[in-house]
C-alpha cells in the first residue's frame, strides 16, 4: 500500500481499489473521493468514498463520461441521482483493497446491479431456480 507513516497518494493508493465490506463481499470500487473544507480553514479532508458509475463518469470526462453519466441518471431509481457515498469513517483498513467495518447492505453501491436484476435477469425463465433445490 502507498503509505509512509500516515501519508498516502490518493490516485495511486486509493482510486480504483476494490471495496470489501465486513464480510469480505465486493462493494464496488473507489471511483472518487469527496472532500470537505474545514470551518477553521486549512486543507480539506476526505469525508466520503464515492463509488459507482455516477462517480466514475466525472473522472472519465469527455464523451465517454457524458454517456456514462446519462446512463446512470436513466437507470437510477432516485429523482436526484447521486453516486453511492461511503463515509470514510467506516473504513477499517487500506491494503490492496479498502476494507469496511460495516455490511454492504444499505450502502446503495449496487444500483445498476439491482436494476439489471429486476428488469432483465428476473424475467429469464428459471431465474429464480435454486440449484440447491430449496425453491
Amino acid at each position, binding site marked *: 500500500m502507498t503509505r509512509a507513516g500516515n501519508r498516502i*497518494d*490518493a490516485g*495511486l493508493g486509493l482510486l480504483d481499489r476494490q471495496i470489501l465490506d465486513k464480510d469480505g463481499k465486493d462493494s464496488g470500487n473507489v471511483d*472518487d473521493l469527496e472532500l470537505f473544507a474545514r470551518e477553521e480553514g486549512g486543507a480539506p*479532508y*476526505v469525508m466520503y468514498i464515492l463509488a459507482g458509475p455516477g462517480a466514475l463518469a466525472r473522472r472519465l470526462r469527455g464523451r465517454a463520461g457524458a454517456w456514462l453519466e446519462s446512463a446512470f441518471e436513466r437507470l437510477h431509481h432516485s429523482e436526484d441521482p447521486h453516486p453511492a457515498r461511503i463515509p*470514510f*469513517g467506516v473504513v477499517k483498513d487500506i491494503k490492496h483493497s479498502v476494507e469496511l467495518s460495516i455490511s454492504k447492505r444499505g450502502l446503495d453501491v449496487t444500483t445498476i446491479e439491482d436494476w439489471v436484476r429486476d428488469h432483465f435477469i428476473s424475467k429469464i425463465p428459471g431465474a429464480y431456480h435454486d440449484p440447491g433445490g430449496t425453491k
Partner: protein
Amino acid sequence: MRLSDFLQAEVLDDNDVSIGRVQDVRLIQDGPVIGTWGAAFSIEGLIVSKRGVGARLGFHRSNVKGPLPLKALFEWIFRDARLVEWERIRSIEEGRIRFRGTYEDLKAPDPLSG
C-alpha cells in the same frame, strides 16, 4: 469538492507559467477524527509534473525495486515532479490551479512506500 476536481488540472505559478498537471494528490492523516477510522486524511499537497505517462504504475514508490530498467525510466520521466503544498495554493478554478511562488521554490515529493 472531489478528488477528480484536482486530478489533471493545470497548475500555474505566480507568473502564470504552467508547471504541469496534477498527477496525484498527497494526503496526510491529520484531519478531524471520523468514525472508527480515526484522523481523517487531508490534502498535504498536489504532485505536479508535465509528464503523465505511467504516473499510476507506481514504479517511483520507494519499495519498488524493479525491474530496474523500468524503475530508472519512470524515475527519469518524473524527475520534474514537484509537491505543491496546500498552503501555497492561491486559487482553484475548473481545470486550473494557481499557487504562490515558482517551480524553483518547490520540493520534489518524497517517494512513499506502497
